């Protein structure tokens, strides 16, 4: 496993380029909005002084091209404007809710990938039997059920009917956690996170499971597996020690991509469970025409996605040396 620094450097450059293009698209999309161009940054309800500060900061009285340059400069300094609703720096507002999204995502991904890998091995084990068909049909159910609908059913059953788990938020009304760490280590917080993360995990489960199954079936055909079998090792040992170990590599790569995608998928789940994360913030911002906040939340989600794609590509090139730079386009 040698790292190809030239490839990494080139890929890193591409990542920056991608981010820059996305930021540019976003800049123009947010200027296409209904109303006058100032509405992208200035709430008519701001005080005169606030308005003037923002006017100056973002060069809103200048031509579009200059505004664009100012936008990029501000972006580099982490200045995304002031939220209309929270009356606070956009980056600060976004940073406040980001941990909630990350906890939810990581916890769901871990559940989904552990269960998915094991399920994939099981399905490969059951290949050709009735159990395989049943397993595949069940997996397809998880892929085709709308996430928000699963969330609604889970809520109606476990929260409202049975009363086992809370229905929304990260804690009881009125309770605030002393610090991020206090929240993370609080059993109450985990109780609130259980339903949303299980719902997200059900959806994420399908990809690692089907991928693991296909890879297992393929690696079982490889010569080293046949040789291990000929050496008289038990089928279970052959599957777990030889086949699964290699079949898992592409699943690891998929997890990096899955992390980026989960950011998008989170939007629906966070809204069903009123989970105060990035996705819910974005929807609220759009609904309340809080444009700077919407733009900031979107940009952060995009940045995470682009970065995870970058990580996935690197993992891919390290884990599978047969891939050449040319193949990656």
């Amino acid at each position, binding site marked *: 496993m040698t790292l190809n620094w030239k490839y990494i450097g080139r890929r890193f450059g591409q990542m920056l380029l991608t981010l820059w293009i996305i930021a540019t698209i976003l800049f123009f999309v947010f200027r296409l909005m209904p109303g006058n161009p100032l509405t992208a940054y200035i709430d008519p309800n701001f005080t005169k002084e606030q308005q003037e500060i923002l006017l100056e900061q973002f060069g809103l009285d200048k031509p579009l091209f200059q505004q664009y340059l100012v936008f990029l400069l501000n972006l580099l300094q982490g200045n995304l404007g002031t939220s209309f609703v929270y009356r606070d720096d956009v980056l600060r507002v976004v940073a406040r809710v980001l941990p909630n999204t990350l906890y939810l995502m990581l916890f769901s991904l871990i559940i989904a990938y552990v269960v998915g890998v094991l399920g994939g091995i099981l399905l490969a084990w059951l290949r050709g039997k009735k159990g395989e068909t049943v397993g595949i049909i069940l997996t*397809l159910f998880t892929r085709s059920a*709308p996430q928000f609908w699963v969330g609604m059913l889970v809520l109606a059953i476990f929260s409202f009917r049975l009363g086992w788990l809370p229905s929304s938020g990260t804690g009881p009304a009125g309770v605030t956690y002393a610090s991020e760490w206090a929240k993370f280590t609080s059993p109450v917080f985990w109780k609130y996170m259980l339903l949303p993360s299980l719902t997200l995990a059900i959806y994420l489960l399908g990809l690692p499971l089907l991928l693991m199954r296909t890879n297992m*079936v393929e690696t079982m055909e490889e010569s080293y597996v046949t040789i291990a079998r000929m050496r008289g090792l038990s089928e279970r040992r052959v599957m777990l020690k030889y086949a699964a170990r290699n079949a898992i590599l592409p699943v690891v790569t998929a997890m990096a991509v899955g992390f980026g995608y989960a950011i998008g998928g989170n939007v629906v789940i966070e809204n069903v469970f009123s989970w105060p994360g990035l996705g819910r913030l974005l929807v609220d911002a759009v609904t309340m025409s809080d444009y700077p906040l919407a733009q900031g939340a979107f940009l952060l989600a995009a940045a995470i996605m682009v970065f995870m794609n970058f990580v996935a590509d690197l993992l891919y090139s390290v884990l599978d040396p047969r891939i050449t730079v040319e193949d990656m386009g």
Partner: protein
Amino acid sequence: MIEMTSILEFFRQDKFALVGAIIYILFILVALFAPAIAPYDPQEMVRVDGRIAFNREPEKNFKLGTTNMGRDIFSQLIYGARPALTVGFTAALFVMVVGTVVGLVSGYFGGKVDSLLMRLTDVVFGIPFDPFVIVLVSFLGPSIWNIVLAMALLLWRDTARVIRSQVLSIKKRAFVEAARVSGASHSRIIFSYIMPNILPLSLLYGSLAIGWAILTEAAVSFLGFGDPSSISWGYMLHDAYVSQALSRGAFYWMLPPGICIMLLVMAGFYISRGAEEVLQPKLRSM
């Protein structure tokens, strides 16, 4: 080219694909004859003895009960097939055409064109899907065509990558080389030699895209950015969610739209899974 007999043969051999096709046909029929099947207008606030019949549980007149506004849930469900199929098919068509053209041009011509198109694909891969659709729809206005547009702008990315790599491998085959040496034009090579070989793959991605599109429309409508003039399954679920159907345990309201979405999406998977096995015969022998 795919002929009628081979399509019939394909469905005969693959039970999954057959089930998928039957589900599609049923839903298409329901959508076409919605006015004849639905007992009420989906927007009508139905009155019984002069009073609006709201929050009724399923009974003889209201097979699936009524909403909190007194609208017949069964009728809404029937009409909901229309936006679902419209969005599903049109979005899938765009995804298929754009993805195939980008992948084809990129893979076939290579060089600078390829780099440029693949960088573009990278950019599109970096845009979070649901947030993009929400932002675009809220700016352009809530209509199913804006949802379709948002999907057409983003979802071609997977198709383009897959088609490109397929074209790269077909390009190296002997029959394409032979055609080139004998002086065939680019368009002749593309349309007569490469297209027929990538068509099954584009169709597969098209059938997957139908499912994505239906799920996306449902999610966007659920979040409240849907087209208010057309009652879709996502809109029904939004309605149920905001009017406390969950805490009342009104499963007669929540279950049917979700099941319809699931069936339709799954039908697309079944068909494409079947197609996948036809495409990769080695899977079958294993």
